[in-house]
Structures are given as structure tokens and as C-alpha cells.
């Protein structure tokens, strides 16, 4: 091969732009779609993570405050009246639901004590399930992105490497300068996939354990409150 030809063909490739934007624009449209999808996933994952972080800390603080108020010796009736005025969450919601069922049973004419215990437990179970569902909502997105993100990025990489090998075959030139841009852009897809997937997995694990802890706490409170109400029922019966 003529050395001057080599020099001329290598020149534009050597000057090829390797910035992130150039890597993106030079890519095949499938690779572009993969990258854009993974970028959207990453944005969504971080949005969920921020949302959940705020929600969990707020829930934890609300639980602490409620437990403090509940065990402070304050009258349960007063507590119920102050909480029932506005919508509540987590432990307060549990308390309000149980108290509402309690009051409804007492204020009705029949004074049906027979199934009250069971009804209160059911109401509290339903409330716990609803609260846990609220905490767990969208966590599945994190799990999905965390597990599928690398695969999607790998798909983009494989596709990009395929097309870069096709360009090698077309140009019949195996110099690294010909191969490198295609491989770089292909690997960029995997990088984006990993960037999306790694935080998703970490946040998913963290949030799942957080949800478990908070639901345990709710169930513990539900059991304690059910015991208190059960004692009241037995005393009044």
C-alpha cells in the first residue's frame, strides 16, 4: 500500500472526535435508541430514588413522632380526634383505621363485641398492606432496570461492534484507527447501561430493606394496639 495513502486515510480518523456527543451521533440508530432508552431509565431511576429517600425519611420521622405521642399518656380519644381531621399515613393511618372501626362498633346500636377484635385486626392488616404498597410502589422499576440495564447496554454494544466489523470488512483496513471509533461508540452503550443499572440495583436493595423494616414496625405497632383494644373489649364486655 502506498504510504501516502495510508497517511491520508489515517489522518481524518486520527482526528476523529471522541467526545461523548460525537460518540453518540456517530452511532447506529439502534445503538442510539438503546442509549436514549438507558438514559431515560437512569433519569427515572434517580427520580424514584430521590422520591423514595424523601418518602422513607418522612415516614420514619412521622412514625417516631406518632409513637412518642401515643406512648406519652395522652388520651387515645384526643389523639384520634386530632389525627382524624386530616389524612394520615403509616402508623397514624393504622391507628385511625383501628379507632374508626372501634368507635363505629361502639356507637352502633348493637354493640357487637363478638367480632370486634377480628374486625379491628383485619382493618389494621388492610391498612398495613396499603401503607406497604405505598412504600413499595415503583421499586419494581429499580429492580427491572438493575437487572435488564446491562443486558440492554450489551445489546447496543454487540450491535455497534457488529456494524463496526462490517465497516472493517467494507474498507478492508484493519488498522486500529478504523476499528477504534466503532468499538468506542459500542462500548459507550454498555457504559450507559451500567451507569443506569448500578444505582438502580443499589437503591433497590436499600429500599427493599427499608420497606421491610418499616412494615415490621407497623406490624409491631398493630399487634400492640390490637392487644390494647382487645383488653378494652374484654373489660367492657
Amino acid at each position: 500500500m502506498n504510504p501516502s495513502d495510508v497517511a491520508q486515510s489515517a489522518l481524518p480518523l486520527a482526528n476523529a472526535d471522541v467526545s461523548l456527543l460525537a460518540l453518540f451521533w456517530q452511532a447506529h440508530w439502534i445503538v442510539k435508541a438503546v442509549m436514549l432508552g438507558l438514559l431515560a431509565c437512569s433519569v427515572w431511576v434517580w427520580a424514584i430514588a430521590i422520591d423514595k429517600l424523601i418518602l422513607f425519611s418522612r415516614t420514619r420521622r412521622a412514625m417516631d413522632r406518632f409513637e412518642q405521642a401515643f406512648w406519652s399518656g395522652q388520651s387515645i380519644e384526643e389523639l384520634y380526634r386530632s389525627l382524624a381531621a386530616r389524612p394520615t399515613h403509616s402508623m397514624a393511618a393504622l391507628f385511625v383505621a383501628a379507632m374508626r372501626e372501634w368507635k363505629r362498633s361502639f356507637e352502633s346500636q348493637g354493640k357487637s363485641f363478638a367480632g370486634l377484635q377480628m374486625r379491628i385486626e383485619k382493618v389494621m392488616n388492610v391498612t398495613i398492606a396499603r401503607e406497604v404498597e405505598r412504600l413499595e410502589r415503583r421499586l419494581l422499576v429499580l429492580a427491572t432496570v438493575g437487572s435488564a440495564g446491562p443486558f440492554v447496554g450489551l445489546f447496543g454494544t454487540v450491535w455497534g461492534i457488529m456494524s463496526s466489523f462490517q465497516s472493517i470488512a467494507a474498507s478492508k483496513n484493519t488498522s486500529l484507527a478504523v476499528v477504534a471509533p466503532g468499538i468506542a461508540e459500542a462500548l459507550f452503550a454498555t457504559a450507559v447501561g451500567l451507569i443506569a443499572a448500578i444505582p438502580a440495583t443499589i437503591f433497590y436493595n436499600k429500599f427493599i430493606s427499608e420497606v421491610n423494616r418499616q412494615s415490621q414496625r407497623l406490624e409491631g405497632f398493630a399487634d400492640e394496639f390490637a392487644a390494647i383494644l382487645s383488653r378494652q373489649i374484654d373489660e367492657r364486655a
Partner: protein
Amino acid sequence: MRRALIISTVAHAVAIGWGLVSFSTRLHEPVPVESMPIDIISADQLSKITAGAKTGDKDKAKPLVEKIAEPKPVDDPMGKISEKKEITTASAPEPPPKPVEKPPEKKPEPKPVEKQPEPKPKDEAKPVEKKPEPKVDPIAEALKKDEAKKPKPKAEARTPPPQPQQPKQEQKFDATRIAALLDKRDPQRQAASGAALNMAPSLGTARGNAAQLSQSELDALRARLMQLWNPPVGNENPEELIVRVRIQLTPDGKLSGPPMVLTSGRSVRFQTARDSAIRAVFRAQPYNMLRKETYETWKDIEVTFDPRDMFRG
């Protein structure tokens, strides 16, 4: 949730923007090394590099020849020609021209009478011969240059005209050519001579010389001498057995004088090796492996007898 989404989007935008700046600049730092095309040529090809000018034409393999004589390249083809040092050897290609009608022609000397008849070797001829008339020479030179330049250089290069045969016009002063008389080139320069005139030299080196001692000739010479050399056996201090011998040869491959030993030593083994080397130099005659065309390169050579070379593959 919307606030979290906004925060996430902004954070991603910031991260990507940072990546655009840092990632791109970091990768641009390794500047690609300028590639240097390398042609691999054999030693034989190297020795056949055409005599020419560095600025010459690559396609036409024609050396720069400014006058007809024994091929003799010059260092700087662009320098000024001085006729003083010019020598005509016996093997000049053209017959001696007529003395009367050719003062301003392209022959090295306007005075053919004193030079042409006797074949002098170069070395003696140089100091002796001087230009008698320096006035005529620049004009003759200028006229000669004009002659060579008038035809188109391209066409001229391919078919060198048979200029030496045709007689030149009479020397006369021409005012229109006065610019050509002002030769600004180096006065110390010698004219590049050759078999045919060529003012458009090809690409090559001024010292280029197709007739050089090739590697195979050197190897043949070395193999012959090593075959005949019998240094004392033993493997201690082989470096003391190294003998360098200067050999002067005649064109027919015989020694023109006794070989001169350039290394010295006192040990008996060295003296044995030295004597053996001298015997080898004598016995190796005639040196048929050296071509006559390259005589200039081997008429005076130094040969190193090294026992370590004998046992190398």
C-alpha cells in the same frame, strides 16, 4: 414525585455536560504521532540510488550532468561551477574536439590541446592544470547554460540531445544574455559531469553512485580472507588476535603494494595471527569477487580479521 423527577433530570444534565467537557478534552490529549513512511530497500538498491538533486524529478531517473566527461557527481548541484578543477581522463567518452572552433562549448576545458592527449590520473592532474583564461569561461559557461535551458527541460530530460557532436556557435558577446552571465552560484563548485547532458536531474543524492561495493561483494571478500586466515587456536583473549590490514589493490584485483598492518601487539599469538593475515591477503589474490566498476571503492580498503567472526554463522 415530580420534584424528584426534575431533580434527577437536572442532575443528569449536569453530569452529561460535565462529561462532555472533561471526557472530550482528556481523550484529545494523546496527539497521534505523525506517521513516517518507510520504504524498505535492499543494500543493493541503496547503492543504486541515482545521482541527482534532492529537488529533482522523481519519475525521470536522470542524473544531473552539466558537461560531458567521466561520471562525477558533485556535492551541491546548485552551486557554481568552476572550471579550474576539471580534469579530463583518458576514458572521456567523446573524441578530442577540434581546438579551434570550440572554445565556448560544453567541454570542460576550452583548451583541449593541453589536456586531452595525455591520460592523467585524477590526483596528479588536479594541482597542475589551471584555467589559463578566466575571462572566457563564465561566458562560455553562460552560453552553455543557455543552450541547455532553451529546449524544454521535460522533453530534454527524456531524450538527451547529442549535443557534444554538433559544433557550437561562435563565441561572441551578446548584451541580451548579460543576465545569464551573472552566475551567482558558488565558485568552488565542480561541474557535474556525465555521459550525456542533463539539466533536469532526477530525485536522488548528489553523492549517489550506482557503482558501489555491494554487500555480497564485501561478504565474498571477507569469506575468502577468513578462509585463508589461520589464527592460533585457543579461546582465551580472542580480542588480542584482531588484525586490521590496509590493502591497496589494482583494478585487476592484485595487490598494488604490501599490506599494511594497522594493529599492533606484542604477544606471540598476535604475531602469529598477524603473519597469517598477511599471508592470507597475499594468497587471496586475485580478488575476482570485486567488480571492476566499483574499483573506486575497493582500491584502498581496510580488512579486519577477527577470530570471533570466523565462528559466527
